[in-house]
């Protein structure tokens, strides 16, 4: 009895480490320390779990099961470490999604596995087990699809077909029917059946979600994984799993809501899918080209050199072109000439919230220069030049008027700057499929071309000035 108290207390300590770790992450200066604290908590929890298992097993110690366990842990750790080392920062979302997949998968397996050795059955444990299986399986396949879409293994657009929602509803009904027909003999078979149904739901629900909505989905799946882990914790009465799972669950929910709010979308609509470009549909090349003025890299360089305050608005196009390094060079050149450079970052720039900050930080740009939405909007009227690189819908003043697809979406008020240049790959429409009024603004000039090339040309002519 004494020992179990000690074990419980140690689990509590590691849960405290997780909370403290997340708390320290709300400031860039302490964030790394936070990550270490959280890491320590995780190590502690795993060591305590090993200790607890060896206590439980004292009577008949099964060496083989420990061998299998540690072989799995060793291989998994090596795989995780090499993935984390090799991945490019633009590929971050895929990796997070991949870790959601394995986390959800492991939670589902524990829930399935525990039916084999379940000694005392009570209602809450049964509910928790099935929720663990269902949520875990949905996360497993859903995250796999999300990851594959982001990685371009399957088309990233909307893959929808008539009756998709109907099939999902049928599967949900099938799960409910299976649940009512449980008895102590078919428990294990039914649990596998339900895992299968849930896995198909996971696939169907992620397939129909378009590339630009994917960050929100990843965040939701992150929350799902947390919940699945918490449910598994319920089955084996483990406090640290319940606490950590619940925290990740609620944190993921809030992040998802914040993100969908920043995109002016309802979370529930995003989850239902079908918004945005259909896969393989590239017919986004219609734009009213009236009143659009173009410019050259040399002209842009000249105007930038004689400005006092420049605000750069980076968007996903920048990340796609891999041009963060060129932005940093431009920043250096301009700073040398005494120009004050800032970055206006929309909450959903990049592929995940805060993703753009990471990409810029990787290119050695100081995070003090990165303005969030509100700070940026107070800075625009004072800016001499606003340079938009690969951002579209988040700069569209149409959002402030009613009657358009993005009405009410919080945007960067780029049009309030004194002079505006937009670097853009082509004259296509943005994700929302509407014309950007900014482009036909009389203060705006367009520089068409690949962001990387356009920026390096600008830097070149800037250094010659």
């Amino acid at each position: 009895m004494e020992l179990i108290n000690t074990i419980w207390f140690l689990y509590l300590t590691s849960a405290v480490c997780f909370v403290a770790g997340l708390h320290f992450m709300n400031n860039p200066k302490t964030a790394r320390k936070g990550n270490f604290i959280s890491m320590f908590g995780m190590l502690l929890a795993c060591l305590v779990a090993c200790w607890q298992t060896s206590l439980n097993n004292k009577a008949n110690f099964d060496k083989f099961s420990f061998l299998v366990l540690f072989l799995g842990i060793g291989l998994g750790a090596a795989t995780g470490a090499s993935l984390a080392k090799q991945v490019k920062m633009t590929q971050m979302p895929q990796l997070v999604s991949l870790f959601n997949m394995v986390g959800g998968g492991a939670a589902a397996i524990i829930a399935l596995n525990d039916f084999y050795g379940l000694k005392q059955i009570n209602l809450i444990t049964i509910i928790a087990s099935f929720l663990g299986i269902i949520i875990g399986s949905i996360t497993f396949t859903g995250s796999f699809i999300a990851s594959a879409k982001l990685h371009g293994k399957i088309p990233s657009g909307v893959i929808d077909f008539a009756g998709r929602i109907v099939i999902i509803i049928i599967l949900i009904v099938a799960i409910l029917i299976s649940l009512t027909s449980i008895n102590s003999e078919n428990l294990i078979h039914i649990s596998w059946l339900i895992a299968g149904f849930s896995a198909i739901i996971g696939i169907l629900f992620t397939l129909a979600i378009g590339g630009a909505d994917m960050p929100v989905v990843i965040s939701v799946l992150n929350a799902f994984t947390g919940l699945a882990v918490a449910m598994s914790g319920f089955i084996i009465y483990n406090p640290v799993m319940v606490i950590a799972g619940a925290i990740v669950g609620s944190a993921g929910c809030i992040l998802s809501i914040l993100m969908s709010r920043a995109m002016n979308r309802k979370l529930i609509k995003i989850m239902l899918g079908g918004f945005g470009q259909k896969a393989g549909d590239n017919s986004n090349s219609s734009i009213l080209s009236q009143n659009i003025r173009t410019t050259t890299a040399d002209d842009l360089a000249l105007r930038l050199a004689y400005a006092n305050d420049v605000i750069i608005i980076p968007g996903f196009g920048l990340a796609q072109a891999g041009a963060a390094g060129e932005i940093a060079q431009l920043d250096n050149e301009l700073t040398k000439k005494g120009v004050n450079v800032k970055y206006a970052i929309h909450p959903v720039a990049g592929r995940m919230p805060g993703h753009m900050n990471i990409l810029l930080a990787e290119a050695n740009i100081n995070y003090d220069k990165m303005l969030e939405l509100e700070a940026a909007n107070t800075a625009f009227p004072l800016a001499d030049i606003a340079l938009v690189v690969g951002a579209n819908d988040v700069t569209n003043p149409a959002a402030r008027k009613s009657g358009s697809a993005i009405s009410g979406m919080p945007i960067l008020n780029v049009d309030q700057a004194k002079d505006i240049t937009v670097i853009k790959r082509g004259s296509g429409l943005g994700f929302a499929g509407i014309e950007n009024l900014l482009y036909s603004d009389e203060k705006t000039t367009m520089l068409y071309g690949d962001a990387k090339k356009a920026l390096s040309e600008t830097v070149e002519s800037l250094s010659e000035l």
Partner: protein
Amino acid sequence: MTIITVILTIFILAILIGYEVIGKVPSTLHTPLMSGANSIHGVVLVGVILSASALEGPLNYILIFIAAFFGAMNIVGGYAISDRMLNMFKNKTKDESK
């Protein structure tokens, strides 16, 4: 009062803590935060380790192996990538203070 009531209480309170801790974080840090939360759900490995005590039959061993692989990958990969990201933020502050 049974242990399950205690666990349910913990669960509800932890949800509220998660809400409080995350709600105030600036969007600059949302990606590292998501990654941090992402590594925390690797705590599922604790469950895997504990389940390894009651193994019966080959299917059980296979399941535990896969789950252990998944859990460890989640933990190590998650923390490593978070650290890599946060390190980029930290270096900049140092450079500036020089």
